[in-house]
């Protein structure tokens, strides 16, 4: 689901500036490998989010001393993250209500 990936990315880069590879790895790790982020959807999503002005990019040395593009959340991104989180909670809560209804 496209919207969900946006949410995951926004949440992940809200913790600290991260490069694409680290974002993908972190999502896999934190979700106990349930969520796999393909490069093919990660990078277009990153560029789309940057284009929207929700994240901004900066070239910095990465942990292994190579230049990498680090993404961090902007003020507009923080607002967007909040509204997407609210949305997601409402949606997942509603699905739970329906599926758990006895």
């Amino acid at each position, binding site marked *: 689901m496209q919207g969900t990936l946006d949410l995951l990315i926004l949440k992940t880069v809200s913790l600290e500036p991260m490069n694409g590879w680290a974002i993908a790895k972190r999502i896999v790790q934190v979700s106990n490998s349930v969520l796999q982020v393909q490069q*093919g959807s990660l990078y277009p999503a990153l560029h*789309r989010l940057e284009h929207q002005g929700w994240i901004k990019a900066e070239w910095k040395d990465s942990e292994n001393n190579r230049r990498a593009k680090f993404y961090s959340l902007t003020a507009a991104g923080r607002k967007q993250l909040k509204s997407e989180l609210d949305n997601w909670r409402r949606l997942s809560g509603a699905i739970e209500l329906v599926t758990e209804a006895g």
Partner: protein
Amino acid sequence: MRWLAKFRSTVQWLLRRGRAETQLDDELRYHCEREIENNVRAGMPLEEAKLAAQRLIGPVSLYKEECRDARGAGWFENFIRDLRYAARMFRRTPVFTVVAIGTLALGIGANSTIFTFVESILLRSLPVPDAQQLVSLNWGPITSIFATGIGHFRALPPAVTMRRT
């Protein structure tokens, strides 16, 4: 003003297209290298690690395309590609090209000539003050009731009438 920011982002991407493309390459290559490193650390020989990373990552050029689209810059790339394609096609059919270009050239030329003519005669006002008060004088044979044998005056449109005194 979000659309303005987006528009600026697209324009920036297009203006620094060469750099943007290099950075996109670098970004994706970095990912690939980290993936290979990971595989090597997990005990794979280098060649196998490369292949495994490629298999996992998939068609990079397609991703690049999608990143450009995400920037709203895809249409520009497509436009350039269409232009190139058109140029190639024209080169392959020179006779058609010459006829098409000739037709256009003649059409445009004739049109602009006629327009220039019409414009200078009908549309542009005369280069004098109070051009609407201008009168045309005709000297000719006696045809009018005002005729005197010397000539007659006739007013150009509307109410300005000149009389002999």
